[in-house]
């Protein structure tokens, strides 16, 4: 069937055409408290056809391979019609034709462990918080191993098969005391190592202690503070606040935004270096080829404080006259590839954590992240684990902290960058496409004058 599709695409009277076929096998185990709440075994098959004809794009999806052939011609007709109605000028950047097969390079394969062993492991983990205190009211554990086989064929002759593992493993612990509820979570998600999820008893004990500690913590007093971000918060900050604005589909057709995001413009202090890479093997956002068959690379977005690059699909690169970076990604066959991040990082600097903390009088230490959102130049974060810094020392825990700010001002306010580095993993949402596996990483950083919201 793949050869037939290849021949059909080559013969298609269009500017560009591609077909994705995806087979996904997923096993999900959920625990609620000490009880197994469900094991779901999922088997999905689907694909899509994407055609560019006379500056018009059309995209169609299918669940049955028998429909693929007919859809190629139909999608081309729709693309032709779209082209006839639009004055949108599209140019796809040239990339090499690739024939390749990429197999997962696993350090430890979860398929070698039995379902019984996995259930027992999770049951053991779920028991740790519940045995520790009767203030712990619920524990939920989600373990998911997903194996995806992706086939990509395009009208230029590329034919790539990629097999990937996506392992998601997370525990959420909830405690309640005197009408106050606290939730903390940890995740061990990655792309190559089932072993990372094993032997985590100590980590789960620490997580439980954190919940118990925050049940007695006060809400933050709102105001303007210097903020020290831990590595996961740094990574999330750079992902949300800068990474999304580096996605070229946001700027390539908007002249005023293009002026703001002009290459060569100074965005931060000289110590600031920001990258996005698909090459960090085993990390959640790493991949060999993106969903347009473009080999991924490491892209410097900011080097020494200056805007140096941005993230591209073939279309955004073609229209902006820049090189593709391998950032076209889709969460599944139901969606067309759009410009997305992979592993986004601030590179380590030279300050020690001791120096960073001791340089801060009254401030906030956001040790770990929970989530964030961005809209244009504005961003919002809710850290998971926060403390006051008083007189150069980490002091009492504080809760319900929200950071907000203007990206451009905040990047300029980065005062210190730590010499440490840690990689975190998560899921990214853009438009209707969530969850996309990504990673974000960095060292500790200190940002001056951050707006910290709270109800006090």
């Amino acid at each position, binding site marked *: 069937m793949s050869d037939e599709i290849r021949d059909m695409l080559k013969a298609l009277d269009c500017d560009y055409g591609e077909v994705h076929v995806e087979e996904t096998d997923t096993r999900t185990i959920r625990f609620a408290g000490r009880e197994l709440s*469900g094991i779901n075994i999922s088997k*999905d098959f689907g694909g899509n056809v994407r055609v560019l004809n006379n500056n018009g794009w059309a995209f169609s999806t299918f669940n049955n391979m028998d429909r693929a052939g007919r859809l190629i011609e139909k999608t081309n007709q729709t*693309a032709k019609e779209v082209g006839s109605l639009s004055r*949108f000028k599209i140019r796809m950047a040239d990339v090499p034709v690739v024939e390749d097969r990429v197999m997962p390079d696993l350090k430890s394969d979860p398929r070698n462990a039995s*379902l019984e062993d996995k259930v027992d492991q999770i049951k053991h983990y779920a028991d740790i918080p519940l045995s520790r205190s009767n203030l712990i009211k619920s524990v939920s554990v989600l373990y998911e191993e997903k194996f995806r086989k992706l086939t990509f064929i395009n009208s230029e002759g590329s034919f790539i098969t990629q097999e990937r593992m996506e392992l998601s493993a997370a525990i959420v612990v909830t405690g309640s005391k005197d009408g106050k509820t606290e939730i903390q979570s940890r995740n061990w998600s990655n792309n190559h190592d089932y072993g990372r999820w094993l032997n985590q008893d100590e980590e789960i004990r620490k997580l439980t202690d954190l919940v118990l500690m925050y049940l007695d913590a006060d809400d933050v007093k709102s105001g303007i503070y210097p903020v020290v971000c831990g590595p996961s918060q740094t990574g999330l900050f750079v992902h949300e606040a800068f990474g999304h604005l580096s996605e070229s589909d946001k700027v390539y057709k908007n002249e005023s*935004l293009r002026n703001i995001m002009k290459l060569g413009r100074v965005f931060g202090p000289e110590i600031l270096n920001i990258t996005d890479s698909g090459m960090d093997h085993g990390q959640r956002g790493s991949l060999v080829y993106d969903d347009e068959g473009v080999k991924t690379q490491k892209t410097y977005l900011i080097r020494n404080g200056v805007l140096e690059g941005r993230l591209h699909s073939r279309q955004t690169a073609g229209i902006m006259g820049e090189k593709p970076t391998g950032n076209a990604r889709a969460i599944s066959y139901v969606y067309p590839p759009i410009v997305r991040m992979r592993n986004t990082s601030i590179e380590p600097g030279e300050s020690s954590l001791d120096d960073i903390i001791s340089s801060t009088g009254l401030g906030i230490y956001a040790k770990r992240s929970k989530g964030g959102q961005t809209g244009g130049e504005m961003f919002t974060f809710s850290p998971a684990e926060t403390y006051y810094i008083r007189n150069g020392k980490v002091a009492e825990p504080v809760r319900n902290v929200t950071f907000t700010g203007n990206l451009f001002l905040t990047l300029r306010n980065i005062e210190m960058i730590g010499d440490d580095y840690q990689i975190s993993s998560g899921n990214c949402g853009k438009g209707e496409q969530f969850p996309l596996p990504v990673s974000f990483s960095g060292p500790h950083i200190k940002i001056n004058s951050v707006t910290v*919201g709270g109800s006090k």
Partner: protein
Amino acid sequence: MNTRENQLIEAIKKEGFRGELFALEDNCTQILFEDQLLSYVKEGENKGYYLRMIDKEGRMGQISFTLIDDFKELIDNCILSASFQKRTPVEFESSSTRTDEGYLDPSFEAVSGRELIGLGNDLINNIKKVNPDIKGPVYIEKNIYNISLITTENAVRSFRKGRINMEIEGKLSKEGDLIQFNRFYSHGRELPDIKAIAQSIERDHASCKNIVNLPSGKYTVILDPEVFEDISRPVEALFNGRSIEKKTSALWDKAGSQIFDSRISIVDDPACPFLENSVPFDDEGVPSTRLDLVKKGIMGDILLDKESSSLLGTKNNGRGFKRRALLGGRTYNAVPQPSVTNLFLKGGDLDREQIFSHSDRAVYIKSLMGTILGHHISGYVSGNVWMGFLVENGSIKGRIKDVVFSINILDALKNNIAGLGRDVYLTKYVSSPFILLKDIQLTSK
């Protein structure tokens, strides 16, 4: 359900098991405009299944899939999934057929891709008249959903539902200041009123001419009806039958107690026709009934699915829905969880002028960003004021920037209500009046 689906259910019955097959088919047409020009047409016909099966020991297994090709493999996977479980309290629906026709207007189904393109062009032309520099993607999407459920106990449920979504991410960059004029429209029968959307963008555009500084402090805050979607995010967590059963909701022991100001009444109504979450029954086939979550400030009904109602020993009210994580929306591939349908906050007795002139100085919040991340199970909501204005003596003085709004709804809806607007406005799946809150802490640069 088609023959193949019925054959699968028969095969499960033949093995002596009980089964429930849920199917979701989404026929979607999506149009994308970029740079004020048509760029993309996306058409999809996607169907997925979720099968729950109870084995002879009363244990429930579950699988999801897109192709019904190998009954033996599907049933074996379900047996494997069930083999780790304890006896389930869940009983599948039995012996009744219900097909609901009133959720899809036939004329709506006939709306063509070209008509959707026409709507987009019309909207873009109207926005250009406001300011040709407002640019950003415009999405228009039509979905026709076929939702069905069949069980080995001879229950058959099905309904078809349509909706049109229109989303605008209009960006205007002015001397380094980026303003977003975002709009979202969704309805199951009415096409969007393009002129009204453009006029509302025009009003905001005019109000954004000045930027005013807002020092941190306590303010009277006017919440636009659209903001009720943000501040009601904790409702699903707090009134969730499973959180109540596990005692993790701050409201687990508050049934019948005064939890909010007596002017607050919140109804969850799935029957209101053609809204985003209007349904005749939930994703477990149970009829979804209207719920008075809060009546005159007193806590009433809670959100229940089969599992939570059985654990709590109360009557199921049909709130077991399969939703996509975080962003919401329908999916076949999720475990049913207690969820809200369409939320209505009842109106009060103030007209718009009284709301805006209530205080000499107030902050009018039109939209928030980041509220999806709050500590919702505690009632906490926090977000960046995406679009907000300083109001003095009833008139808008200018746009405020870099401001954080944070409240705990358990506190603010009890102690800080200064009034509610008389008129209610419908957006997506929530309906709300203007809400006037006093003494709310706002933090800014």
